[in-house]
């Protein structure tokens, strides 16, 4: 088992450091000192397959088709398990490709449902997003009990969502009973003079019984505590992982004639850790 140490945050410390950094204009990574935590890697996929290979069937399953009502969001794409929509690139990445064919779109959505789920821990992915109006990539979690209690009672943790027309902003959110769909608990994180499709970034949450912390490149930009939600806290059960690229839908709007296609989300790895107490 691989283990890493990541500092646990100390907000006072952060604030002081923030002020200090604002004063001298130093890089943010130099100041955000978080309390140390020890993690054990329990599940991962480095996507080291041959070019054109589908995702490892022992780790990933597919959502296929157009779902009910465009997966509940009026999304336009149809999900497939064709290598042209989802396959390894032979260089250590999984590539999910959204393809336009006239007015129809194909893409892919993969999930660990039924294969892997975990309660609490660190969930992270290193990836490059697609871009362009109407593109909606996501790295997210759903509660394992979705089959029995339904959504949003099962809970949803969106580690990374992006609107392709704003390629420099990602959003971290949770959806639960009383705070779902257009009204989640959410926060955005924007890059200054950079964008998420230009290079790889690491998107992560660290989740325990009290809170969920959201990170971009190990920078904590949002903490949601179990007392912060305007409804029931439904995050004390195992969640499974999803990765997808949607096209269109309520969240992002339609693609336009100026949206470049095809579009790719390139995923270097997905890793899940549990905390060593």
């Amino acid at each position, binding site marked *: 088992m691989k283990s890493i140490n990541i500092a646990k945050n100390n907000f006072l410390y952060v604030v002081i450091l923030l002020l200090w950094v604002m004063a001298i204009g130093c890089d943010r990574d130099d100041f955000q000192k978080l309390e140390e935590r020890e993690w054990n890697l329990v599940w991962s996929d480095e996507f080291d397959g041959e070019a054109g290979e589908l995702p490892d069937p022992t780790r990933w399953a597919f959502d296929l088709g157009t779902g009910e009502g465009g997966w509940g969001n009026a999304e336009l794409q149809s999900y497939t398990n064709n290598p042209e929509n989802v396959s390894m690139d032979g260089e250590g990445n999984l590539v999910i490709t959204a393809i336009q064919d006239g007015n129809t779109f194909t893409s892919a959505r993969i999930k660990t449902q039924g294969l892997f789920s975990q309660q609490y821990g660190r969930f992270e992915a290193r990836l490059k997003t697609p871009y362009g109006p109407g593109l909606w990539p996501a790295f997210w979690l759903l509660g394992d009990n979705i089959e029995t209690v339904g959504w949003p009672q099962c809970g949803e943790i969106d580690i990374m969502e992006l609107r392709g027309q704003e*390629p420099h902003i990602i959003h971290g959110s949770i959806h639960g009973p009383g705070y779902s769909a257009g009204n989640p608990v959410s926060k955005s994180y924007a890059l200054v003079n950079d964008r998420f499709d230009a290079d790889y970034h690491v998107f992560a949450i660290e989740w325990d019984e009290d809170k969920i912390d959201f990170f971009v490149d190990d920078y904590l930009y949002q903490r949601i505590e179990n007392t912060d939600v305007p409804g029931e806290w439904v995050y004390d059960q195992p969640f499974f992982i999803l990765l997808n690229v949607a096209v269109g839908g309520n969240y992002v709007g339609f693609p336009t004639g100026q949206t470049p296609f095809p579009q790719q989300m390139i995923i270097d790895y997905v890793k899940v850790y549990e905390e060593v107490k």
Partner: protein
Amino acid sequence: MKPNILIRFTQLITAAAFLALLAGCERDITDLEEASFPTNPEVFIDGFSAGLNYAAFGGSVPTAFSVDNDVTYDNSAASMRIEVPDANDPRGSFAGGVYYLDTGRDLSGYNALTFWAKASQSATIGEIGLGNDLGQNEFVVSIQGLNVSTGWKKYIIPLPDPSRLTQERGLFWYAAGNLDGNGFTFWIDEVKYEKLGTIAHPEYAILNGEDQVETSFIGVTKSIGGLTTTFNMPTGINQAVSAAPAYFEFVSSDPSIATVDASGTVTVTGGPGNVEITAHVGEVAAEGSLTMQSLGDFEQAPVPTHDPENVISIFSEAYENIPVDYYNGYWEPYQTTQSADFIVEGNRVLNYTDFNFVGIQFTSPTIDASSMTHLHLDIYLPNPLNAGAEFNIEIVNFGEPNVSGSYTIPIPVDQAQQWISIDVPFEDLGGLTSRDNLAQIIFLDESENIPGFYADNIYFYNDGAEPPTPDEPESPAPTPTHDAANVTAIYSDSYDVIPGTNFFPDWGQATVVTEIQIQGNNTLRYQGLNYQGIELASSQDFADMDYLHLDFYTANSTELYVYLISEGPVETGYTLSVPTTGWSSVDIPMSAFAPVDLGGVIQLKFDGNGDIFLDNIYVHKE
């Protein structure tokens, strides 16, 4: 400018060498970099940046640009105000100019030219960019058709390859015309160069990203166009900018077959063989390629030999060509034919590929080819042929209605890959009933056997022959000029005639005789002549007459005789020259009819074949 650079450069080297000596290090002078230029990113913030000049384009309103202290972005001190003139403004037809430096700047550390802009109404600025230095314009970049609204908005012009801009003098330029005849005003502010992390994914293309394949020959030159650079903007949409060839490095896969120069001009130098021309910008390969399949030496079409006086030329280097609307109309939706014309050793050759049909049009003006007899063209079919290939030509005369004629040439298999000279006589173009308003030549491949062809020397000509005689005269016979006092007429509207003549005696002949009127003039018509007599009412004394006059016309007779007959009968024929070109007038000496008794002529007779028109039959004295 150059001397300045040299002086500065020399100074720098001297100073550096001196420093090096002082420091006692072993630095070599050759390690020194070239003189560097200022990296100041500012073009116009609240006024001209250091060293900036403005020059208006020729033909533009010289005063279109001014500095505005009232309308500015973010309440800054000043903006650039551009007034685009109305149509027909006597001062100039558009607004346009260059903001340039005398000495260059090093812009290689930036990746975009940015500015804020707004306009007095929603408007489109024709072209705006950088790299115009009033000189070579080597690194010109522009956005064509930039839409500007009435609110301030930031615009970004990405730099295709900043590393090339180490001493750029053309910092900014624009050209804008009126909107439907109406002028407008636009303002530009905060013009500067920036290093933006929010533009990404540069893509480069030659030939608009297409992979083109062409058959070619030694000596062919071709310019690679469609050079674009596309960046993804902060809004996630792509923005294309047009970029000068100097940003692209063109590469030939086999310079022994074809070379390509820095401007993207390809010259085929060898063959047979294939060569691929590609390009890259910096490290990034451009989309699109040109594959030249060189067949080796090019065989030029035969040089035309027709006298230029007798030629109306559509496409030939041998003659002066009339104005042509197009050599390929790209007629939608069914035409597949593309054009890939080329120039070999200065001679342009039309090259039609993916051929199904293609039209050449010339309507400014149309051609009056009434005095021409043929269409000529040379074609070359570069692909091997299957049996049964046919090349179809259609010529269209505009009018009410349009008329056209078609001509089909079978192309034997062994005629491929060589020049074929085609001469189409107008008389073989059934349906082309007039050619005084010719407007189109259409080539078709109805056999679906000819994938493409080259064409050269397309022209109409007169082969020197008089135009063929129509089956029927369009005008009456010429009016006779002999003095009526000297004339005894048998058939004519111009003279009193001997009364009582029978022009339709039944001698058992097959000839059909009718009298017709041509523009009101009575004319005798013999259709299907074998023989035909004319019976005078009584015996006539022509002894003191010198000539028999006749006007005759025939397009199709090959044998024709006229006879005088006296009692006996005694008859003698005289050979008439047929067919005629228009009306033919003869004055036959009466002595030619010996031994006919000229004192007692009772009949005339025509013998021969074909359709004959007759008028003004009379005898006269000198």
